């Protein structure tokens, strides 16, 4: 019951996925052995001068890597690494660390570090470090929104933030750059969280990029049900049909979800059971103009307008309704009670030139 109750607290702009789909990871990180060919770590440093580095420690998707796996209770270590990377490769840039506004302990640790950094000589660069808090609401950590909220700057969707001198740095890459380029140690593993109803257990795996998905999942998937595998989240990620596909340094997470392609009786008593599956949870209907899609859209668009254009066969007209602002978060399709494929329509309209 508690789960259903939580669903009602739908957020106006954006949606708190973490509350609606709680995912617990087990504490231990498991190393996946693989002897085949692996990819080496590499980081492409931007050509333009970097003025702002944003490190996001507040995942807004429940299946994303929890930040404790990166920090490992050694926040100061992590911040030292960050400072080293910053002063070596991006001198004079400002570093913005973003944390969840509920995580008071983490925020205090960061504040202590910042206060201490001003005094202790080797890292007397406290003024370059800025702390920010955001609500863990999806998709507030999308590049466009995070840059807008933290720096007040506008970048267009799909534009490389580096052109404006902004570097969005994955916390794992901080460690990567530090170990590989500065310490010149070997660095060839990446943490990948795997989760979902298609698994027996949610785990955080330590994998060498280049490992096929099959190898990572084979021990954990449930064999009694049908499942589907998705890369980088369920809302705007991609489906993996071929499990021999290899993961790379940009893979963020893997979600395996039960495929409910059969009818179940009395679905209203089984919302919890159906919630975290691929079920559409309803039938396809016409748009009922309920305004749920524009209430949830984080950038204030009116997705139903695109669907109407598409429905009338006037795909080219969709562009007139600020289509280019869409950050492709997928929430409009997620919320639509008529189960319209709004996100797909948006992508199709966008691809028209």
């Amino acid at each position: 019951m508690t789960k259903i109750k939580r669903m009602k607290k739908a957020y106006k702009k954006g949606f708190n996925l973490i509350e609606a789909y709680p995912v617990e990871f087990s504490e231990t990180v498991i190393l996946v052995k693989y002897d085949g060919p692996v990819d080496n770590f590499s980081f492409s440093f931007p050509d333009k001068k970097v003025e702002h580095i944003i490190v996001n420690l507040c995942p807004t998707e429940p299946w994303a890597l929890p930040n404790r796996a990166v920090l490992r209770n050694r926040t100061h270590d992590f911040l030292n690494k960050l400072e080293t990377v910053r002063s070596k490769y991006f001198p004079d840039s400002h570093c913005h660390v973003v944390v969840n506004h509920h995580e008071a302990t983490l925020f205090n640790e960061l504040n202590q570090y910042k206060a201490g950094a001003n005094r202790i000589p080797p890292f007397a660069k406290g003024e370059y470090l800025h702390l920010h808090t955001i609500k863990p609401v999806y998709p507030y950590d999308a590049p466009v929104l995070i840059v807008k909220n933290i720096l007040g700057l506008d970048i267009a969707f799909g534009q490389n933030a580096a052109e404006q001198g902004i570097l969005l740095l994955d916390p794992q890459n901080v460690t990567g750059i530090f170990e590989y380029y500065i310490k010149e140690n070997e660095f060839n593993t990446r943490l990948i969280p795997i989760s979902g109803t298609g698994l027996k257990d949610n785990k955080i795996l330590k994998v060498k990029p280049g490992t096929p998905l099959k190898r990572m999942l084979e021990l954990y998937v449930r064999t009694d049900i049908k499942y589907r595998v998705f890369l980088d989240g369920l809302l705007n990620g991609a489906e993996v049909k071929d499990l021999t596909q290899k993961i790379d340094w940009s893979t963020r997470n893997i979600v395996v979800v039960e495929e409910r392609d059969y009818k179940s009786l009395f679905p209203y008593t089984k919302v919890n059971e159906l919630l975290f599956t691929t079920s559409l949870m309803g039938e396809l209907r016409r748009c009922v103009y309920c305004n749920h899609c524009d209430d949830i859209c984080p950038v204030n668009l009116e997705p139903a307008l695109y669907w109407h254009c598409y429905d009338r066969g006037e795909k080219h007209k969709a562009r007139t309704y600020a289509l280019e602002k869409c950050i492709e978060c997928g929430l409009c399709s997620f919320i639509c009670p008529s189960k319209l494929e709004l996100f797909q329509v948006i992508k199709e309209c966008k691809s028209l030139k």
Partner: protein
Amino acid sequence: MKNTIKDIETILNENLNRIEAFIHSHPKVNFLFGALFEAADGLIRSTRDTAKNPPFIRNSMDVKQYMGGILVALFFGWVVPAIYFYGFLCVIPKLIVSFVVGVFVVDVIWVILAGEERINEGGFVTCLFIPAFLPPQAPLWLIGVGAAISILFRNILGGVGHNLVNPALFGRLMLTICFPTMVVSGWQEPSTGIPTIQSLMHGVDAVTHATPLIAFKETGETASFLSLMFGANTGSLGETCRVALIITGIWLCVKRIANWRIPIAYLGSVFIFSAILSAIAGKTVAPPIFQLLSGGLIFGAFFMATDPITTTYSQSGKWIFGIGCGLITVIIRGYTPIPEGVMYAILLMNLLSIPIQSIILKIKYRM
């Protein structure tokens, strides 16, 4: 206990699967009963469809729950109070006639003839509206005709999602045109006080009395606000118990099924315009609170005007829509011989919502 339920579920599920397979393997049976089976099956089982495109999980709210919410709100908003005021035997046969004619005859025949895939649950909502805005003594056949016209009209325009104006109100308009005396007479006095078996079954003696709005037109008297609020006054079957309607209407807004902007804009503008006009024109225009609490205004504002398909899609358009409804209602009530203007106001604004929507889009996106 739990196991028995599980067993029954399994058996039921298997049999339903078997019936489904049978229907789909016989084209003729499918033609006649396919949609009917889908509709019945859809009520007790979830769909087989899974997400083929991202996002791969979907929210649990669907159109069935959306319409179900409206049905529940209408049930507690008017059916329950109406049974208390007018008796079981006055309300239930009307509902049955409305549903049978509207959904089970007209809609089913339409679906079969037009070869549509399924029966739309929106029909239940429309049919639940029909008895509500007719007088308590309206004959059953009148309700049947109203339901048939409404559903037919909606289907001709292309079904839910394509209706230009609210189908239930359109049905009511047609009844007003065809049977002008029937829809404005037979305002029965409600039974009040502690209910007895007798009053719950049959209501009290059929004493008729003009509605407060008609009385105001004729004599300039206003009824007491308390009796208007709780429904101890004459009026259409479903519109008198305003407390229940307000509570369920607010519940609908909280559940985000109805859009709160419309009732607020509608009721607020009725209040403001009637205050201004009654200050200027004196007795011809009723005072604001009386206006708010009389006639079908509360019912119309929370349940009819909020019908999402017939309002504008843009949120700012909803304000204009509501204010327009309010203005027209006050003008019709005050300056025409027709005592009640809610129906005309909403129908007119339904038609105007299309130009309003396109003007708003032009301004917003600067085309």
